[in-house]
Protein backbone atom coordinates (compact mmCIF):
# COMPACT_ATOMS: atom_id res chain seq x y z
CA UNK A 1 0.00 0.00 0.00
CA UNK A 2 2.92 2.29 0.68
CA UNK A 3 3.92 1.71 -2.89
CA UNK A 4 0.44 2.63 -4.01
CA UNK A 5 0.60 5.94 -2.18
CA UNK A 6 4.00 6.61 -3.64
CA UNK A 7 2.69 5.83 -7.08
CA UNK A 8 -0.41 7.95 -6.69
CA UNK A 9 1.51 10.93 -5.38
CA UNK A 10 4.09 10.94 -8.15
CA UNK A 11 1.24 10.22 -10.54
CA UNK A 12 -0.50 13.31 -9.22
CA UNK A 13 2.47 15.37 -10.32
CA UNK A 14 2.17 13.84 -13.78
CA UNK A 15 -1.52 14.71 -13.79
CA UNK A 16 -0.66 18.31 -12.98
CA UNK A 17 1.93 18.44 -15.76
CA UNK A 18 -0.58 16.99 -18.20
CA UNK A 19 -3.22 19.48 -17.08
CA UNK A 20 -0.82 22.28 -17.93
CA UNK A 21 -0.23 20.73 -21.34
CA UNK A 22 -3.96 20.45 -21.90
CA UNK A 23 -4.72 24.03 -20.89
CA UNK A 24 -2.33 25.31 -23.54
CA UNK A 25 -3.44 22.68 -26.04
CA UNK A 26 -7.06 23.72 -25.76
CA UNK A 27 -6.65 27.48 -25.62
CA UNK A 28 -3.66 28.00 -27.87
CA UNK A 29 -3.90 24.88 -30.01
CA UNK A 30 -0.30 23.88 -29.48
CA UNK A 31 1.97 21.87 -27.23
CA UNK A 32 4.16 23.66 -24.72
CA UNK A 33 7.13 21.42 -24.22
CA UNK A 34 8.43 23.81 -21.55
CA UNK A 35 5.48 23.30 -19.22
CA UNK A 36 7.44 21.02 -16.93
CA UNK A 37 10.19 23.63 -16.84
CA UNK A 38 7.62 26.12 -15.58
CA UNK A 39 6.82 23.77 -12.74
CA UNK A 40 10.54 23.49 -12.05
CA UNK A 41 10.74 27.27 -11.79
CA UNK A 42 7.90 27.14 -9.29
CA UNK A 43 9.82 24.58 -7.28
CA UNK A 44 12.95 26.74 -7.23
CA UNK A 45 10.98 29.82 -6.28
CA UNK A 46 9.56 27.80 -3.39
CA UNK A 47 13.10 26.85 -2.36
CA UNK A 48 14.23 30.45 -2.62
CA UNK A 49 11.25 31.74 -0.66
CA UNK A 50 11.23 29.12 2.06
CA UNK A 51 14.93 28.40 2.53
CA UNK A 52 16.99 31.26 1.19
CA UNK A 53 14.85 34.22 2.19
CA UNK A 54 12.42 32.88 4.78
CA UNK A 55 9.24 34.45 3.48
CA UNK A 56 5.85 33.70 5.00
CA UNK A 57 4.11 30.82 3.28
CA UNK A 58 1.32 32.93 1.87
CA UNK A 59 3.84 35.23 0.19
CA UNK A 60 5.74 32.30 -1.26
CA UNK A 61 2.59 31.08 -3.00
CA UNK A 62 1.88 34.54 -4.32
CA UNK A 63 5.38 35.06 -5.65
CA UNK A 64 5.54 31.59 -7.17
CA UNK A 65 2.14 31.85 -8.84
CA UNK A 66 2.71 35.36 -10.12
CA UNK A 67 6.31 34.77 -11.08
CA UNK A 68 5.72 31.68 -13.16
CA UNK A 69 2.63 33.28 -14.67
CA UNK A 70 4.85 36.04 -15.98
CA UNK A 71 7.45 33.60 -17.28
CA UNK A 72 4.74 31.64 -19.09
CA UNK A 73 3.29 34.79 -20.55
CA UNK A 74 6.71 35.86 -21.75
CA UNK A 75 7.23 32.44 -23.26
CA UNK A 76 4.00 32.77 -25.23
CA UNK A 77 4.95 36.17 -26.55
CA UNK A 78 8.53 35.34 -27.43
CA UNK A 79 8.59 31.69 -28.42
CA UNK A 80 5.09 30.98 -29.65
CA UNK A 81 3.31 34.02 -31.02
CA UNK A 82 5.96 34.95 -33.62
CA UNK A 83 6.11 31.45 -35.06
CA UNK A 84 3.54 30.86 -37.75
CA UNK A 85 3.51 27.10 -38.12
CA UNK A 86 2.75 24.74 -35.29
CA UNK A 87 5.68 22.55 -36.32
CA UNK A 88 8.02 25.38 -35.50
CA UNK A 89 6.62 25.41 -31.98
CA UNK A 90 8.42 22.19 -31.16
CA UNK A 91 11.75 23.78 -31.89
CA UNK A 92 11.04 27.05 -30.10
CA UNK A 93 9.43 25.44 -27.09
CA UNK A 94 12.36 23.04 -26.72
CA UNK A 95 14.50 26.14 -26.97
CA UNK A 96 12.48 27.94 -24.32
CA UNK A 97 12.69 24.90 -22.07
CA UNK A 98 16.45 24.73 -22.49
CA UNK A 99 16.76 28.45 -21.86
CA UNK A 100 14.76 28.22 -18.65
CA UNK A 101 16.80 25.27 -17.42
CA UNK A 102 19.98 27.11 -18.27
CA UNK A 103 18.97 30.19 -16.32
CA UNK A 104 17.87 28.13 -13.33
CA UNK A 105 21.19 26.31 -13.39
CA UNK A 106 23.08 29.59 -13.52
CA UNK A 107 21.27 30.89 -10.46
CA UNK A 108 21.05 27.80 -8.29
CA UNK A 109 23.72 25.50 -9.65
CA UNK A 110 23.39 21.88 -10.68
CA UNK A 111 23.00 20.16 -7.33
CA UNK A 112 19.74 18.87 -5.95
CA UNK A 113 18.32 21.07 -3.21
CA UNK A 114 15.90 20.05 -0.53
CA UNK A 115 12.64 21.93 -0.37
CA UNK A 116 10.86 21.85 2.97
CA UNK A 117 7.14 21.31 3.11
CA UNK A 118 5.05 24.25 4.30
CA UNK A 119 3.50 22.22 7.09
CA UNK A 120 4.63 19.33 9.20
CA UNK A 121 5.65 16.44 7.03
CA UNK A 122 5.57 13.52 9.40
CA UNK A 123 4.71 10.15 7.94
CA UNK A 124 1.36 8.72 8.89
CA UNK A 125 -0.41 5.53 8.08
CA UNK A 126 -3.45 5.64 5.81
CA UNK A 127 -5.25 2.52 4.64
CA UNK A 128 -2.32 0.41 5.72
CA UNK A 129 0.36 2.31 3.89
CA UNK A 130 2.91 4.86 4.96
CA UNK A 131 2.30 8.23 3.45
CA UNK A 132 3.62 11.72 3.98
CA UNK A 133 1.22 14.70 4.11
CA UNK A 134 2.66 16.37 1.04
CA UNK A 135 1.80 13.30 -0.98
CA UNK A 136 -1.83 13.48 0.06
CA UNK A 137 -1.86 17.16 -0.78
CA UNK A 138 -0.51 16.44 -4.25
CA UNK A 139 -3.21 13.88 -4.93
CA UNK A 140 -5.84 16.30 -3.74
CA UNK A 141 -4.42 19.13 -5.83
CA UNK A 142 -4.43 17.00 -8.95
CA UNK A 143 -8.07 16.10 -8.48
CA UNK A 144 -9.14 19.64 -7.61
CA UNK A 145 -7.19 21.07 -10.54
CA UNK A 146 -8.75 18.63 -12.96
CA UNK A 147 -12.22 19.30 -11.68
CA UNK A 148 -11.72 23.04 -11.83
CA UNK A 149 -10.54 22.87 -15.41
CA UNK A 150 -13.39 20.60 -16.37
CA UNK A 151 -15.89 23.01 -14.85
CA UNK A 152 -14.31 25.89 -16.67
CA UNK A 153 -14.56 24.17 -20.01
CA UNK A 154 -18.03 22.71 -19.70
CA UNK A 155 -19.90 25.40 -17.83
CA UNK A 156 -18.55 28.76 -18.91
CA UNK A 157 -18.66 30.60 -22.21
CA UNK A 158 -14.93 31.18 -22.03
CA UNK A 159 -14.45 27.44 -21.79
CA UNK A 160 -16.70 26.82 -24.78
CA UNK A 161 -14.85 29.52 -26.68
CA UNK A 162 -11.56 27.77 -25.90
CA UNK A 163 -12.85 24.48 -27.22
CA UNK A 164 -14.08 26.17 -30.36
CA UNK A 165 -10.83 28.07 -30.83
CA UNK A 166 -8.86 24.85 -30.51
CA UNK A 167 -10.86 23.52 -33.42
CA UNK A 168 -10.79 26.52 -35.75
CA UNK A 169 -9.17 29.72 -34.58
CA UNK A 170 -10.21 31.88 -37.47
CA UNK A 171 -13.86 30.86 -37.27
CA UNK A 172 -13.74 31.52 -33.53
CA UNK A 173 -12.44 35.04 -34.03
CA UNK A 174 -15.26 35.68 -36.48
CA UNK A 175 -17.67 34.82 -33.71
CA UNK A 176 -16.13 37.46 -31.50
CA UNK A 177 -13.58 35.38 -29.60
CA UNK A 178 -10.30 37.20 -29.06
CA UNK A 179 -8.00 34.28 -29.77
CA UNK A 180 -4.82 36.19 -28.98
CA UNK A 181 -5.92 36.89 -25.45
CA UNK A 182 -7.24 33.36 -25.18
CA UNK A 183 -3.87 31.89 -26.07
CA UNK A 184 -2.01 34.24 -23.77
CA UNK A 185 -4.54 33.60 -21.04
CA UNK A 186 -4.09 29.87 -21.38
CA UNK A 187 -0.33 30.16 -21.04
CA UNK A 188 -0.74 32.46 -18.07
CA UNK A 189 -3.15 30.07 -16.40
CA UNK A 190 -0.84 27.11 -16.96
CA UNK A 191 1.97 29.22 -15.52
CA UNK A 192 0.01 30.21 -12.45
CA UNK A 193 -0.92 26.58 -11.88
CA UNK A 194 2.71 25.52 -12.29
CA UNK A 195 3.90 28.15 -9.85
CA UNK A 196 1.32 27.51 -7.19
CA UNK A 197 2.04 23.78 -7.04
CA UNK A 198 5.78 24.41 -6.68
CA UNK A 199 5.77 24.33 -2.87
CA UNK A 200 4.07 20.94 -3.05
CA UNK A 201 6.09 19.36 -5.84
CA UNK A 202 9.43 20.48 -4.40
CA UNK A 203 9.32 18.49 -1.17
CA UNK A 204 8.51 15.38 -3.16
CA UNK A 205 11.01 15.65 -5.99
CA UNK A 206 13.81 17.96 -4.72
CA UNK A 207 14.84 21.00 -6.66
CA UNK A 208 17.29 20.17 -9.41
CA UNK A 209 17.74 21.21 -13.01
CA UNK A 210 17.18 17.78 -14.50
CA UNK A 211 13.71 17.59 -12.98
CA UNK A 212 12.03 19.17 -15.95
CA UNK A 213 12.80 16.67 -18.65
CA UNK A 214 11.66 13.70 -16.61
CA UNK A 215 8.38 15.43 -15.73
CA UNK A 216 7.92 16.60 -19.31
CA UNK A 217 8.17 13.13 -20.74
CA UNK A 218 6.11 11.32 -18.12
CA UNK A 219 3.48 14.05 -18.24
CA UNK A 220 3.34 13.42 -21.96
CA UNK A 221 2.75 9.74 -21.33
CA UNK A 222 -0.19 10.74 -19.12
CA UNK A 223 -1.58 12.91 -21.87
CA UNK A 224 -1.07 10.31 -24.57
CA UNK A 225 -2.82 7.70 -22.46
CA UNK A 226 -5.78 9.89 -21.76
CA UNK A 227 -6.02 11.51 -25.14
CA UNK A 228 -5.02 15.01 -26.17
CA UNK A 229 -7.50 17.53 -24.91
CA UNK A 230 -9.20 15.21 -22.45
CA UNK A 231 -9.17 16.34 -18.82
CA UNK A 232 -10.55 13.16 -17.32
CA UNK A 233 -8.18 11.22 -19.54
CA UNK A 234 -5.07 12.87 -18.25
CA UNK A 235 -6.17 12.24 -14.65
CA UNK A 236 -6.41 8.54 -15.37
CA UNK A 237 -3.25 8.63 -17.44
CA UNK A 238 -1.22 10.41 -14.80
CA UNK A 239 -2.19 8.17 -11.92
CA UNK A 240 -1.70 5.01 -13.97
CA UNK A 241 1.75 6.16 -15.06
CA UNK A 242 2.72 6.94 -11.48
CA UNK A 243 1.50 3.58 -10.26
CA UNK A 244 3.30 1.68 -12.99
CA UNK A 245 6.49 3.50 -12.14
CA UNK A 246 6.23 2.91 -8.40
CA UNK A 247 5.24 -0.71 -8.73
CA UNK A 248 8.11 -1.41 -11.10
CA UNK A 249 10.59 0.27 -8.79
CA UNK A 250 9.33 -1.78 -5.86
CA UNK A 251 9.06 -5.16 -7.48
CA UNK A 252 11.58 -5.13 -10.31
CA UNK A 253 14.23 -2.55 -9.58
CA UNK A 254 15.04 1.14 -9.77
CA UNK A 255 16.80 1.08 -13.13
CA UNK A 256 13.72 -0.37 -14.77
CA UNK A 257 11.09 2.14 -13.77
CA UNK A 258 11.66 4.54 -16.64
CA UNK A 259 12.02 1.70 -19.09
CA UNK A 260 8.66 0.33 -18.06
CA UNK A 261 6.97 3.68 -18.45
CA UNK A 262 8.55 3.97 -21.88
CA UNK A 263 7.24 0.56 -22.82
CA UNK A 264 3.82 1.67 -21.59
CA UNK A 265 4.02 4.73 -23.84
CA UNK A 266 4.92 2.64 -26.86
CA UNK A 267 2.07 0.26 -26.22
CA UNK A 268 -0.43 3.09 -25.93
CA UNK A 269 0.78 4.80 -29.06
CA UNK A 270 0.66 1.62 -31.05
CA UNK A 271 -2.62 0.28 -29.78
CA UNK A 272 -4.74 3.34 -29.10
CA UNK A 273 -3.09 6.43 -30.51
CA UNK A 274 -6.06 8.62 -29.69
CA UNK A 275 -5.84 7.65 -26.05
CA UNK A 276 -8.47 6.02 -23.93
CA UNK A 277 -10.77 9.01 -23.81
CA UNK A 278 -9.38 11.27 -26.46
CA UNK A 279 -11.28 13.21 -29.08
CA UNK A 280 -8.84 13.40 -31.97
CA UNK A 281 -9.88 11.12 -34.78
CA UNK A 282 -7.95 10.27 -37.89
CA UNK A 283 -9.35 11.39 -41.20
CA UNK A 284 -7.76 9.95 -44.25
CA UNK A 285 -8.59 12.50 -46.91
Amino acid sequence: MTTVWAGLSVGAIYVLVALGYNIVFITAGTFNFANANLIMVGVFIAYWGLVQVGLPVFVVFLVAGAGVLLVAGAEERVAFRPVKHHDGHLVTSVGAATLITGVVQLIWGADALQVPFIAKNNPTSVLGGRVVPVELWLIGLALVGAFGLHALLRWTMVGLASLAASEDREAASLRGVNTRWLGLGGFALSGALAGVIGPFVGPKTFAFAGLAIALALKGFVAMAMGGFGSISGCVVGGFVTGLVEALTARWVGGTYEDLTVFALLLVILMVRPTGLLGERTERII
Partner: protein
Amino acid sequence: MSVETRPLLEVDGLAAGYGDLQVLWDVALGVRAGEITVLLGRNGAGKTTTLRAVAGLSRASAGSVVMAGNDITRLSADARVRRGIAMVQEGKRIFRRRTVHENLLLGGYTLGLGRRRLAERCGYNYDRFPMLRDRAGTPAGMLSGGQQQMLAIAQALMAEPKVLMLDEPSAGLAPTVVKSTFETVAALSAEGLGVLLVEQQVDHALRIASHVVVLDVGRVVVSGPASEVGDASVIRDAYLGRLS
Protein backbone atom coordinates in the same frame (compact mmCIF):
# COMPACT_ATOMS: atom_id res chain seq x y z
CA MET B 1 -38.71 53.07 -54.53
CA SER B 2 -35.89 53.34 -52.06
CA VAL B 3 -34.91 56.59 -50.43
CA GLU B 4 -31.17 57.14 -50.60
CA THR B 5 -30.39 56.34 -46.99
CA ARG B 6 -26.92 56.31 -45.55
CA PRO B 7 -25.38 52.88 -45.97
CA LEU B 8 -24.85 50.84 -42.82
CA LEU B 9 -21.53 49.60 -44.15
CA GLU B 10 -19.31 51.87 -46.21
CA VAL B 11 -16.09 50.67 -47.76
CA ASP B 12 -13.89 53.19 -49.52
CA GLY B 13 -10.55 52.99 -51.30
CA LEU B 14 -9.85 49.55 -49.86
CA ALA B 15 -6.49 47.99 -50.69
CA ALA B 16 -5.41 44.62 -49.32
CA GLY B 17 -3.52 41.46 -50.10
CA TYR B 18 -1.64 38.47 -48.74
CA GLY B 19 2.01 39.02 -47.95
CA ASP B 20 3.68 40.30 -51.12
CA LEU B 21 0.68 39.65 -53.25
CA GLN B 22 -1.62 42.66 -53.59
CA VAL B 23 -5.11 41.57 -54.53
CA LEU B 24 -7.26 44.64 -53.94
CA TRP B 25 -6.26 48.03 -55.26
CA ASP B 26 -9.22 50.32 -54.78
CA VAL B 27 -12.57 48.90 -53.75
CA ALA B 28 -15.58 50.94 -52.73
CA LEU B 29 -19.04 49.66 -51.92
CA GLY B 30 -21.97 50.19 -49.59
CA VAL B 31 -24.57 48.01 -47.90
CA ARG B 32 -27.88 49.49 -46.75
CA ALA B 33 -30.31 48.14 -44.21
CA GLY B 34 -32.87 45.81 -45.75
CA GLU B 35 -30.98 45.52 -49.01
CA ILE B 36 -28.75 42.91 -50.61
CA THR B 37 -25.52 44.01 -52.24
CA VAL B 38 -24.13 41.29 -54.45
CA LEU B 39 -20.40 41.16 -55.12
CA LEU B 40 -19.51 39.36 -58.33
CA GLY B 41 -16.38 38.74 -60.29
CA ARG B 42 -14.04 36.15 -61.71
CA ASN B 43 -11.81 33.98 -59.62
CA GLY B 44 -8.92 35.98 -58.34
CA ALA B 45 -10.82 39.26 -58.75
CA GLY B 46 -10.72 39.77 -54.99
CA LYS B 47 -14.22 38.98 -53.76
CA THR B 48 -13.20 36.82 -50.83
CA THR B 49 -10.29 39.13 -50.09
CA THR B 50 -12.75 42.02 -49.87
CA LEU B 51 -14.92 40.19 -47.36
CA ARG B 52 -11.92 39.14 -45.32
CA ALA B 53 -10.61 42.68 -45.22
CA VAL B 54 -13.99 44.04 -44.18
CA ALA B 55 -14.34 41.34 -41.53
CA GLY B 56 -10.89 42.03 -40.18
CA LEU B 57 -9.23 38.73 -41.06
CA SER B 58 -6.86 40.45 -43.48
CA ARG B 59 -5.27 43.79 -42.85
CA ALA B 60 -6.12 46.62 -45.23
CA SER B 61 -3.07 48.47 -46.51
CA ALA B 62 -5.18 51.45 -47.49
CA GLY B 63 -8.77 52.63 -47.39
CA SER B 64 -11.47 52.63 -44.78
CA VAL B 65 -14.28 50.46 -43.46
CA VAL B 66 -17.04 52.34 -41.68
CA MET B 67 -19.86 50.56 -39.87
CA ALA B 68 -22.91 52.56 -38.72
CA GLY B 69 -20.81 55.67 -38.70
CA ASN B 70 -17.89 54.15 -36.77
CA ASP B 71 -14.52 53.65 -38.39
CA ILE B 72 -13.60 50.02 -37.76
CA THR B 73 -10.62 49.86 -40.12
CA ARG B 74 -8.08 49.33 -37.34
CA LEU B 75 -10.14 46.92 -35.26
CA SER B 76 -9.45 43.20 -34.96
CA ALA B 77 -11.94 40.70 -36.33
CA ASP B 78 -13.45 39.85 -32.96
CA ALA B 79 -13.91 43.51 -32.13
CA ARG B 80 -15.73 44.13 -35.40
CA VAL B 81 -18.33 41.50 -34.52
CA ARG B 82 -19.24 43.64 -31.53
CA ARG B 83 -19.85 46.57 -33.86
CA GLY B 84 -22.59 44.69 -35.68
CA ILE B 85 -20.95 43.03 -38.64
CA ALA B 86 -20.89 39.25 -38.95
CA MET B 87 -19.42 37.02 -41.63
CA VAL B 88 -20.31 33.55 -42.82
CA GLN B 89 -17.19 32.15 -44.44
CA GLU B 90 -17.02 29.92 -47.43
CA GLY B 91 -16.97 26.24 -46.70
CA LYS B 92 -19.42 26.03 -43.80
CA ARG B 93 -16.90 26.72 -41.10
CA ILE B 94 -18.83 25.76 -38.05
CA PHE B 95 -17.33 23.87 -35.13
CA ARG B 96 -17.81 20.27 -36.07
CA ARG B 97 -16.98 18.70 -32.73
CA ARG B 98 -19.39 20.91 -30.83
CA THR B 99 -23.12 20.28 -30.85
CA VAL B 100 -25.56 22.37 -32.85
CA HIS B 101 -26.68 24.07 -29.65
CA GLU B 102 -23.12 24.88 -28.60
CA ASN B 103 -22.44 26.32 -32.04
CA LEU B 104 -25.36 28.66 -31.61
CA LEU B 105 -24.22 29.66 -28.13
CA LEU B 106 -20.82 30.50 -29.59
CA GLY B 107 -22.49 32.69 -32.14
CA GLY B 108 -23.79 34.76 -29.27
CA TYR B 109 -20.42 35.06 -27.56
CA THR B 110 -20.25 38.79 -28.02
CA LEU B 111 -23.54 39.35 -26.21
CA GLY B 112 -21.67 38.79 -22.95
CA LEU B 113 -24.29 36.55 -21.41
CA GLY B 114 -23.89 33.34 -19.49
CA ARG B 115 -24.79 30.04 -21.06
CA ARG B 116 -28.27 29.83 -19.62
CA ARG B 117 -29.34 33.34 -20.64
CA LEU B 118 -27.80 32.78 -24.05
CA ALA B 119 -29.75 29.56 -24.53
CA GLU B 120 -32.95 31.58 -24.32
CA ARG B 121 -31.79 33.75 -27.21
CA CYS B 122 -31.29 30.65 -29.33
CA GLY B 123 -35.04 30.15 -29.45
CA TYR B 124 -35.43 32.79 -32.12
CA ASN B 125 -33.03 31.01 -34.43
CA TYR B 126 -34.53 27.61 -33.68
CA ASP B 127 -37.88 29.05 -34.79
CA ARG B 128 -36.43 30.25 -38.05
CA PHE B 129 -34.52 27.03 -38.70
CA PRO B 130 -36.62 24.29 -37.12
CA MET B 131 -34.43 21.48 -38.41
CA LEU B 132 -31.69 22.78 -36.12
CA ARG B 133 -33.90 22.43 -33.08
CA ASP B 134 -34.45 18.75 -33.98
CA ARG B 135 -30.71 18.24 -33.99
CA ALA B 136 -29.71 20.54 -31.16
CA GLY B 137 -27.67 17.90 -29.36
CA THR B 138 -25.98 16.46 -32.44
CA PRO B 139 -22.34 17.22 -33.16
CA ALA B 140 -22.34 19.70 -36.00
CA GLY B 141 -20.00 17.57 -38.07
CA MET B 142 -22.72 15.01 -38.52
CA LEU B 143 -25.12 17.34 -40.27
CA SER B 144 -25.49 17.33 -44.02
CA GLY B 145 -23.92 20.09 -46.11
CA GLY B 146 -27.13 22.06 -46.41
CA GLN B 147 -27.88 21.82 -42.70
CA GLN B 148 -24.37 22.94 -41.85
CA GLN B 149 -24.84 25.97 -44.06
CA MET B 150 -28.06 26.82 -42.22
CA LEU B 151 -26.25 26.42 -38.92
CA ALA B 152 -23.48 28.72 -40.09
CA ILE B 153 -25.99 31.40 -40.96
CA ALA B 154 -27.95 30.93 -37.74
CA GLN B 155 -24.70 31.10 -35.76
CA ALA B 156 -23.80 34.41 -37.35
CA LEU B 157 -27.27 35.77 -36.66
CA MET B 158 -26.94 35.01 -32.95
CA ALA B 159 -24.65 38.02 -32.58
CA GLU B 160 -27.59 40.22 -33.69
CA PRO B 161 -25.60 41.83 -36.49
CA LYS B 162 -26.80 44.72 -38.56
CA VAL B 163 -24.80 43.63 -41.58
CA LEU B 164 -24.31 40.02 -42.60
CA MET B 165 -21.64 39.02 -45.10
CA LEU B 166 -21.84 35.67 -46.89
CA ASP B 167 -19.06 34.15 -48.96
CA GLU B 168 -20.43 31.80 -51.59
CA PRO B 169 -23.08 30.23 -49.36
CA SER B 170 -24.17 27.95 -52.19
CA ALA B 171 -20.72 26.44 -52.79
CA GLY B 172 -20.65 22.68 -52.71
CA LEU B 173 -24.39 22.39 -52.22
CA ALA B 174 -26.81 20.52 -54.42
CA PRO B 175 -29.15 22.67 -56.52
CA THR B 176 -32.25 22.09 -54.35
CA VAL B 177 -30.42 23.28 -51.29
CA VAL B 178 -29.01 26.25 -53.14
CA LYS B 179 -32.51 27.50 -53.84
CA SER B 180 -33.57 27.34 -50.22
CA THR B 181 -30.37 29.06 -49.13
CA PHE B 182 -31.06 32.01 -51.38
CA GLU B 183 -34.64 32.14 -50.17
CA THR B 184 -33.41 32.35 -46.60
CA VAL B 185 -31.01 35.18 -47.44
CA ALA B 186 -33.77 37.11 -49.19
CA ALA B 187 -36.07 36.66 -46.18
CA LEU B 188 -33.38 37.93 -43.79
CA SER B 189 -32.89 41.00 -45.90
CA ALA B 190 -36.61 41.66 -45.92
CA GLU B 191 -36.48 41.79 -42.12
CA GLY B 192 -34.07 44.69 -42.21
CA LEU B 193 -30.65 43.07 -42.26
CA GLY B 194 -28.07 44.51 -44.62
CA VAL B 195 -26.51 41.75 -46.68
CA LEU B 196 -23.24 41.62 -48.59
CA LEU B 197 -23.26 38.51 -50.71
CA VAL B 198 -20.36 37.10 -52.70
CA GLU B 199 -21.43 34.63 -55.33
CA GLN B 200 -20.31 32.70 -58.39
CA GLN B 201 -23.89 31.71 -59.22
CA VAL B 202 -24.66 34.89 -61.13
CA ASP B 203 -28.25 34.10 -62.06
CA HIS B 204 -29.38 33.12 -58.56
CA ALA B 205 -27.66 36.10 -57.01
CA LEU B 206 -29.10 38.62 -59.43
CA ARG B 207 -32.60 37.44 -58.69
CA ILE B 208 -32.38 38.69 -55.10
CA ALA B 209 -29.94 41.58 -55.48
CA SER B 210 -30.73 45.21 -54.70
CA HIS B 211 -27.28 46.43 -55.69
CA VAL B 212 -24.63 44.87 -57.84
CA VAL B 213 -20.89 45.38 -57.61
CA VAL B 214 -18.55 43.63 -60.03
CA LEU B 215 -14.85 43.33 -59.27
CA ASP B 216 -12.09 42.69 -61.73
CA VAL B 217 -8.44 42.40 -60.73
CA GLY B 218 -9.00 44.14 -57.45
CA ARG B 219 -11.03 47.09 -58.71
CA VAL B 220 -14.72 47.86 -59.11
CA VAL B 221 -15.75 47.82 -62.77
CA VAL B 222 -19.52 47.85 -62.39
CA SER B 223 -21.55 49.31 -59.52
CA GLY B 224 -25.16 50.32 -59.26
CA PRO B 225 -28.73 49.34 -58.47
CA ALA B 226 -29.75 45.92 -59.73
CA SER B 227 -32.55 47.42 -61.80
CA GLU B 228 -30.01 49.31 -63.91
CA VAL B 229 -27.06 47.02 -63.85
CA GLY B 230 -28.60 43.62 -63.22
CA ASP B 231 -28.64 42.53 -66.82
CA ALA B 232 -26.82 39.25 -66.99
CA SER B 233 -25.15 40.09 -70.27
CA VAL B 234 -23.65 43.29 -68.84
CA ILE B 235 -22.26 41.26 -66.00
CA ARG B 236 -20.88 38.70 -68.36
CA ASP B 237 -19.14 41.34 -70.35
CA ALA B 238 -17.53 42.57 -67.20
CA TYR B 239 -16.38 39.05 -66.43
CA LEU B 240 -14.86 38.66 -69.85
CA GLY B 241 -13.08 41.95 -69.47
CA ARG B 242 -14.85 43.88 -72.18
CA LEU B 243 -15.68 46.86 -70.01
CA SER B 244 -12.39 47.75 -68.42
